[in-house]
């Protein structure tokens, strides 16, 4: 509504600066009708939005009805609840503690990210941010990466798959997964993050993620075995997880 009002104000302003006699008359603010006592009553004429074809001279112009707005972003509240659910049903403060981990370098506090995530601040009259921006994406990434790292630490340890929250599968011991083994495990993650089987995804997605796993493992293999951080297997699955939480399909709906 505000955007439409702004557009109308712009039209009005343009009409003012151009001052052409044949410019359309600016539309004044619609006035609810009033009775004799001045009370606003219900017999207000309905204002109907006009289509493009109703504007003189536009009757035969083809109309592009494709959506012009940006893709629909998952509301930040739903995103936070999703993080809480997907990563083990924790409360935000528990999740914050987990995200900070022992080092505290990956994540600070939720409050540091709220503005970037687009959370509205009603008290300060800052509206919900429904469009992505660089800061928002960086914040999404930071949280997602931290969550993935914590999930790798817990899920890829030896425990029954039913107790795992993200990597709900086992990995073969002492060797890399085969293509077929990767595909089945990729499907588990795909259903977790995107809500549908990997087989329904665009066909290039599986090989891309497969290659990502290989590349991440190879890069880690070039470092000393005692280098800090994850080993090659864990590092490569963490990177796959990063790719899911960074993917546009995760943040849009």
């Amino acid at each position, binding site marked *: *509504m505000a*955007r439409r*009002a702004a557009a*109308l*104000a712009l039209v*009005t302003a343009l*009409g003012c600066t151009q001052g052409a006699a044949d410019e359309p008359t*600016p539309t*004044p*603010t*619609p*006035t*609810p009708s*009033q*009775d004799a*006592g*001045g*009370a*606003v009553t*219900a017999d*207000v004429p*309905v*204002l109907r*939005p006009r*289509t493009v074809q109703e504007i003189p001279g536009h009757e035969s112009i083809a109309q592009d*009805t*494709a*959506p*012009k*707005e940006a*893709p*629909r972003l998952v*509301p930040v509240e739903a995103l*936070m*609840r999703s993080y*809480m659910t997907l990563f083990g049903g924790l*409360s*935000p*403060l528990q999740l*914050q503690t987990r995200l900070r981990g022992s080092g505290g370098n990956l994540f600070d*506090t*939720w*409050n540091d990210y*709220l503005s970037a995530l687009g*959370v509205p601040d009603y008290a300060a009259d800052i*509206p919900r941010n429904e469009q992505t921006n660089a800061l928002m994406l960086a914040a999404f990434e930071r949280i997602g990466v931290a969550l993935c790292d914590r999930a790798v630490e817990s899920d890829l340890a030896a425990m029954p*798959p*039913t107790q*795992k929250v993200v990597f*709900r599968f086992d990995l073969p011991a002492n060797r890399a997964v085969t293509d*077929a083994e990767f595909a089945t495990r990729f499907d*588990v993650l795909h*259903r977790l*993050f995107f*809500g*549908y*089987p990997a087989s*329904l995804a665009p066909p290039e997605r599986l090989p891309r993620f497969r290659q990502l796993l290989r590349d991440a493992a190879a890069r880690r293999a070039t470092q000393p075995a005692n280098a800090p951080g994850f080993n090659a297997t864990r590092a490569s699955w963490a990177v796959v997880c990063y790719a899911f939480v960074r993917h546009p399909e995760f943040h*849009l*709906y």
Partner: protein
Amino acid sequence: MRYRYAAGVLALMMSAGVAPQVADAVPTREAYRFFRSLSIDLQGRMPTPEEVAAFERPDFNLDAWIDQRLTGPRYAERLRRIYMDRMRLEVGSNFGFVSNPIVLRRVRVRDPNNNLVDVYYRRSQRRNRAETDADFCLTQAESGIRVANNGTIDGTATPVAADVWGARTVALRPWWLYRDYRNTNPSQRVAPNANSDAVEFEPVAALMNEPDGRTPTVSVRVCREEAQTAPTGRVYLSGRTTNPPRGTPLPGNRFNNPPLDSAYARAHPTDMVSCTAGTGVSMSDQCGCGPGLERCMPGASLGNDPPAFVLPNNMPLGPDVPLDNVAQAQSEWARFWWSQEAVRFLDDLFGNDRDVREVLTGRQTMVNGPLSQFYRTMAGSTCCGNGTNFDYVEPVSLFEPAQVPADLVPQDTNTWRRVADRGPNAAGVLTMPIFLAKYGTRRARAHIVYQAFLCREFVAENVELTPSEEPNLMVRSGCATCHTTLEPLSSYFTRVTESGWTFLPAQRFPAENTACARRGTSISGICGSFYDPQFANSTRGLLRGAYGSVANADAGPAGLARAVTAMPEFSQCVASNFAESFLGRALGPEDSALVTDLTTALRNGNYRSRALVRALLRADAYRNANNLGSDTWRQGAMP
């Protein structure tokens, strides 16, 4: 499209406990994504693998699944966000509800045993000693320190004599330390749950412990007048009618002159006044803070807005799962719960599928312990100021205190009770403190109603603004286009004071008042606070804000609610607001058919939100709301 699981995938799913019952009954990608959208909008999160597995079963009933979600708390939260996003019903510290009649500040003195003790007092407390009237109850001669009402202290604390200590102060067990504070001997001491993240009743540590920071406070020391519990007090006449000449030593070496007797006090020297009204506190030395000091808010310092309670700064997912919990100034306590009242009111409305028009017209509300305390004992503290010139000393409330649940105590932060009827002046969110604080002026209040509930905006016409002394904006060139509409709408709020919630009843404040008629070029000074000299004539004065419409002024916010919800634009606006929120984009002309359909669904569904949401979720526009680019749409692809 049919899909059969690869054997490996199925085995993994079975090991994780999320396997479908029928392996080849998997829906299309579009159906999965539709289900994901429904989960995000109705459950407030993405679906879990278990829910996706359930969705894949051939006997999955999507309609039943949707209907089940339309009764849940996340659904109510989803709809509430639509209106909270539009009205933004929170206020920050720029709205400092620091009402002197209710704020207890404290001064650190030395008791007769030379121990440091905090003594609570309120700045406006009337006392029958000129040395301490409306000031701290111990003079500099008695305590060694001189306390200014701006929070500064002179001198060094010295032990107070035992007889003075006993005569001027009292020890008691207050409401912020004891749940059973109304009992003769309270014993149920407050014990915040340190293991809980949720918002709960938690005074700051300084209120819970003695000055040593370790010893739990068992009772507090308070000035004797503040400890009084009577509901009414007799008007106090000090005999002071004028201030002494400048330079005259002030009694007790106090910083400021003691208060003078008001005109009302002089005219009503034997009257009894309510101790829950601000005028009662300012006119009677018999009005205290009530049983357990329940009419007053504690503060852990002498500052203007002292720290009092632990509350979150941010909780986008609600008070059960806040993102932090920190010590806050006492005024935040009221602001926080006012906002939560609106949240709970909207949740109740949408969660129980009440008539959406009740957002504006409903006389019901939701209260918990802190809100019950506020409406019962503190809301009247802002009344009645200069209204005493019109003999207005007993507040007529937007929320009648008698309707407040009597059994709720301030510690009941998580117990919410529905109040069916706040009283005849109540009107949905329009008469809630959070709305009236957020939108402080009559015009601001009218404007947000115009925006949020009629989906309209004021747009200035294209005319040259010329200098004018015309006070009537409905006729002044360049202003009239908007104000012809805005002023009559604003008039509905004539009887609610600006930046507050004090109601101005017609009995005391007739919209047209002959006593406030113009005399020469102005009106009487006592009229000026409430009557507008610009619109007074020789026969009557006009209540401020009523010039847009006297009828609307007398109809009040409830009249505005009735008028707005009767307009056809109201239901169209509800439909548009819901559609914009669920589609995640502004609507355009191409959406007019959708809005018409949704409006019809709302009206045919007796203005129940579920009927509207069901229609919206089944609309192609929602199913096709996509995360693909416009190019894909132009090429005819489905998302």
